[in-house]
């Protein structure tokens, strides 16, 4: 039991941290507020905070003018597609490294991680040319494969740290019970690892959703996700702040919600298990 903290001290720290947190959060809040304003009010000086005519008009216009739904669906396809594809080959790999490690397992893990260190510009040119020649530019398949490869090391690594926490004796028990390796994976390991797998999926959806190097360079229209959608607003004719805000709010809202749920996993995933 910790000692009771004096109320005055607690109030002081509370006020201070709420102020700082509010400042950090302000640009997000401001974007959401602006999305409900008219274009006139969005640029008015002095700015209006809560007392303006709330309108949903911008959301309707954004959808009509730039087809938000199509981009959003692309974001969903790319994020889910790349994550599921990665899981498919990552689960067996993580199982093997966690429960049947060989002498080189650690080196292998480190090597996988090192692929993540590769700066994308090092691969941009050849990938762009190969994609151009294979007609993969602006295709779902192409970008899903790239995002899958991009996140595969993190997925394997995260699953590995979660699998490591499952006692090997339970898998051995299932082996004694006559389960084949496949059944061991499906009936015993997978159900026990559900929380870990879910966290991994969550983090990777967030990373894939926000990925904005390859999605900006390899897509233009058909397979373009929300990152491209927003980038299209940077052109001068697109500069209507209320609409920009509505588009932005729609682009970040889903991931903000997921992200708030995934804070813990985020720490673990992005530090490769070094901080838990």
């Amino acid at each position, binding site marked *: 039991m910790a000692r009771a903290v004096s109320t005055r001290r607690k109030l002081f720290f509370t006020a201070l941290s709420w102020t700082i947190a509010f400042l950090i959060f302000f640009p997000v809040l401001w974007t959401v507020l602006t999305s409900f304003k008219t274009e006139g009010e969005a640029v008015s000086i002095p700015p209006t905070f809560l007392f303006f005519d709330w309108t949903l008009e911008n959301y309707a216009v954004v959808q009509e003018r730039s087809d938000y739904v199509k981009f959003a669906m692309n974001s969903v396809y790319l994020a889910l597609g790349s994550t599921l594809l990665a899981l498919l080959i990552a689960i067996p790999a993580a199982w093997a490294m966690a429960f049947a490690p060989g002498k080189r397992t650690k080196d292998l893990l480190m090597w996988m991680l090192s692929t993540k260190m590769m700066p994308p510009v090092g691969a941009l040119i050849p990938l762009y040319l190969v994609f151009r020649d294979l007609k993969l530019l602006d295709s779902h398949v192409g970008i899903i494969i790239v995002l899958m490869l991009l996140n595969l090391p993190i997925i394997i690594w995260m699953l590995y740290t979660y699998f490591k926490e499952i006692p090997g004796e339970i898998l051995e*028990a299932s082996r004694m019970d006559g389960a084949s390796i496949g059944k061991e994976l499906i009936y015993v390991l997978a159900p026990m690892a559900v929380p870990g797998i879910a966290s991994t999926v969550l983090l990777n959806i967030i990373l894939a959703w926000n990925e904005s190097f390859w999605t900006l360079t390899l897509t233009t229209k058909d397979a373009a996700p929300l990152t491209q959608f927003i980038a299209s607003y940077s052109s001068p004719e697109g500069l209507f702040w209320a609409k920009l805000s509505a588009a932005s709010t729609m682009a970040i809202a889903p991931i903000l919600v997921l992200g708030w749920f995934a804070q813990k996993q985020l720490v673990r995933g992005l530090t490769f298990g070094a901080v838990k």
Partner: protein
Amino acid sequence: MGTISLKNVRKAFGEAVIIPGADLEIKDGEFIVFVGPSGCGKSTLLRLIAGLEDLTSGQILIDGEDVTDVPPAKRGLAMVFQSYALYPHMSVRNNIAFGLKMAGMPKSDIDAKVAKAAATLNLADYLERKPRQLSGGQRQRVAIGRAIVRQPKCFLFDEPLSNLDAALRVNMRVEIMQLHQQLDATMVYVTHDQVEAMTMADRIVVLNKGIIEQVGSPLDLYNKPNSVFVAGFIGSPKMNLISGAVAVKHTAATIGIRPEHIALLGTGGDVQGTIVLTEHLGSDSFLHVDAGEAGRLTVRAPGDYLGKPGQAVSLGFDKARIHRFDSQGKVLV
């Protein structure tokens, strides 16, 4: 049937030799206990029998059949793990039934077998619960239930009681022994606790650094240990081991004498000493005596013994009960 024979079984992880070569015959229906300090290779030996580890060389036969290269599930064995290794996401019923399902047994047969095992182990009321909702003792019983429904040729236990508190451990010990009588199956039981070994075993296998030091019935080991290691390991409190001039008098490098074989005399005796500490257990008292060149000795005295620390005592050894060992630690006959 359930005989197991180990023929020159050897296990090494790279350079590290865990078991340099073990031979053992386990008879049908026997309760055999592997005992030794931690790191002596007893668990590895059990896992080799289970098939969870590969042999480096040698052979394992079950019922005369060579199973050295047979996967664990096909050996007809069942194992109870130290951590119980229950499947946390399955109900007690499914935990017990899992092995039968894997074997493709019809559902009605499975239900009947699970019901019978649950009745035997007092688990009938808990079948729909998850392992986390059970107490330590109940989990232990589920682990045993999972083993018995498969009607194995032999049960393997890997330190199954070490996670239970002392009182529960005594109860479970009795339950496992009763189970052994009921099922009349071969059981191989690993423990580091020599009390468990003494109370449960038909035969004890004492292991030290991967080598089988001695195999025998509990009383055999107690009365005729063939090495200093076994002498010191079996029995509580431990046998007194004395080397130096006192041992030379008996023409040995080391002599051993159990606390209950030392008498408290008024005068004379083999050695003189001073009481350092007394432990009163009620039925007995154990005296720690500083006996000069014989070192510190433990002596059993009656429960109502009144001697106080600092008091001088004379100790007489029961000549017939002195164990003599050579400089290699082997017994001298």
